[in-house]
């Protein structure tokens, strides 16, 4: 176990280093000059500002000096200052994080619990009419764009259902009911595509287990369908599902961008979008790095849980 843990942790170091150098390079090696682009678009452009800003951002020294310094800052949790608002990027991310976190977690819980039930029903009734309908729903969920559903909900919801997107965000601990009412619908829309992916995974994983010999043995022993499903099938089919769930959790924590924009939720995705529109390169860099790191660490956590659930992993090369 310790050896596995160590190897898995060591593997993260090069990944994070490469990740950070890519984010670093993205802004610095881009065609043209970030500073000039930034300043051309700002209303108070003076030529002496160019050198001043260059120095402030540490861009006046060679790249091989910049990178270690920048990396050291990143490790201290300092992602630089926004080019647009001059606010601390780390602070901005922390400020916007709770909304994204809540949306992501709610969508995760909804999609996964439903996917588990639907996937098992679909698989245990393989090729029945119920299975076909559920599979069609799943693949439709993968095909319908999030921004379209959200737009329809806002447009038609406002017209016929009396639903209005919130104007201001109410934190959960201030007023749980209002907060839930604000978050439930957007989170449900985010959950659709995640649900669709998971259902397909659960279904195929359950089918895989149903073909195993020990299931036939259980049937031969005369166990009922429910007992077999709940006792033998579910536990054994969850392994691949868990590893997919990890990726999905990471995706949800980083991927509620479109919903945040449509429903006017000031989460981290919104922050990223805003940064792109304003060409705020330090902010883009910070958010991208943050999302990449979140993904890497969630994956690490999933791998560790996985090795705990399935001890065979630890001994495999």
């Amino acid at each position, binding site marked *: 176990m310790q050896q596995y843990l160590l190897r898995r942790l060591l593997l993260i170091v090069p*990944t994070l280093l490469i*990740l950070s150098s890519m984010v670093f390079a993205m802004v610095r090696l881009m065609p043209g000059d970030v500073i000039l682009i930034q300043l051309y678009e700002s209303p108070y452009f003076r030529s002496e500002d160019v050198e001043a800003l260059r120095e402030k951002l540490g861009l006046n020294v060679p790249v091989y000096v910049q990178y270690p310094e920048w990396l050291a800052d990143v490790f201290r949790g300092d992602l630089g200052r926004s080019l647009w608002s001059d606010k601390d990027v780390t602070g901005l991310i922390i400020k916007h994080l709770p909304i994204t976190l809540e949306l992501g977690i709610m969508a995760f819980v909804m999609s996964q619990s439903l996917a588990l039930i639907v996937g098992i029903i679909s698989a245990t009734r393989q090729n029945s009419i119920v299975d076909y309908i559920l599979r069609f729903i799943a693949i439709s969920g993968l*095909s319908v764009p999030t921004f379209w559903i959200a737009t329809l909900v806002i447009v038609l919801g406002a017209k016929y259902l009396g639903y209005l997107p919130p104007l201001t965000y109410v934190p959960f601990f201030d007023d749980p009911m209002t907060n839930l009412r604000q978050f439930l619908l957007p989170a449900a829309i985010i959950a659709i595509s995640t649900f669709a992916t998971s259902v397909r995974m659960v279904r195929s994983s359950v089918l895989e287990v149903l073909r195993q010999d020990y299931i036939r043995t259980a049937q031969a022993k005369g166990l009922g369908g429910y007992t077999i499903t709940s006792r033998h099938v579910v536990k054994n089919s969850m392994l691949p599902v868990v590893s997919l769930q990890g990726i999905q959790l990471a995706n949800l924590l980083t991927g509620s961008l*479109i919903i945040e924009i449509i429903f006017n939720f000031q989460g981290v995705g919104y922050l990223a979008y805003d940064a792109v529109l304003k060409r705020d390169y330090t902010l883009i860099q910070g958010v991208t790095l943050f999302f990449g790191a979140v993904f890497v660490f969630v994956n690490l956590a999933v791998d560790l849980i996985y090795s705990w659930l399935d001890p065979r992993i630890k001994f495999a090369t």
Partner: protein
Amino acid sequence: MAAGAKLGAFDERILERRALPSLVIRSVWRFARTNPLGAFGGAVLIFMVVLALGADWIAPHDPLGVDPPNQLTGPSLTHPFGTDNLGRDQLSRVIHGARPSLYTGLITIFTGSLLGMLLGVISAYIGGIFDLLVQRIVDALLAFPGLILAMALIAVFSSGIHIWFIDMPLVWHSIPVIVVVVLSFLMIPSTARIVRGAALGIVNLQYVEAARVLGASPVRLVLQHIVPNVFPVVIVIATVSLGYVVLIEASLGFLGLGTPPPNPSWGGMFSGIGRQYFETAPWLAIFPGVAISLAVLGFNLFGDAMRDVLDPRLRQ
């Protein structure tokens, strides 16, 4: 001898002429019968290609033709999908909107899966430190959320500057060039990861070794002996990705980063000023969305069917 050869060739030609069309028809028919949903997906794909290629002839009106007196009229016989805030015919815009989506999707999966395949195969073939390094880079690239990375890259590349020595146009024949470049790039790591896995099982097989002993060059080994064997995997990745790429393209269009107005694109119809008319003219929001959903559904069904046919390990 000469007569025999002639006769043989003659026979073959007859066989070919007779067999090929009927073989194609028969296999298509078999595919449709065993895989009705996949056949539906294939039909959608063909329909989309026809729509995109023939948009100029199929669309009843000019997609850019402004007609102020007729703005925001509901669906009617002359404008089956209604008109938008400038009086442009929505049906024509939806038909023309198939172009950026389909072209982006097809070019992206072609270049993305080709480059990803080469990277994966070469990584598996060379192995060692090179392989380790490539895989860590792939790890890092896979860690970025697709849409955010695409957005950031497009922001970086579309800053209105020459890219290297090429003056890259934003749109070329209704294809959003930067979007295609960025999405192709984003397809490389996942393709390379899967193809590498498939290629690892092949590089050490005896026939590859035999070819090497016979003096085949590395290029020949890779292209002649390894690539053909990972090709089904690549086809599966490409077809399964098509729907996803079209969806991402539409999402970027929605974010205002795709085909710039006034050129019609499905995602673009949801961005910008058009949004504020959705409440009074819901058909503006409904039809393009139906078009995207139907197309992506078709591509997904087709991709699933192709996977079932080409990759027996995944067959259920």
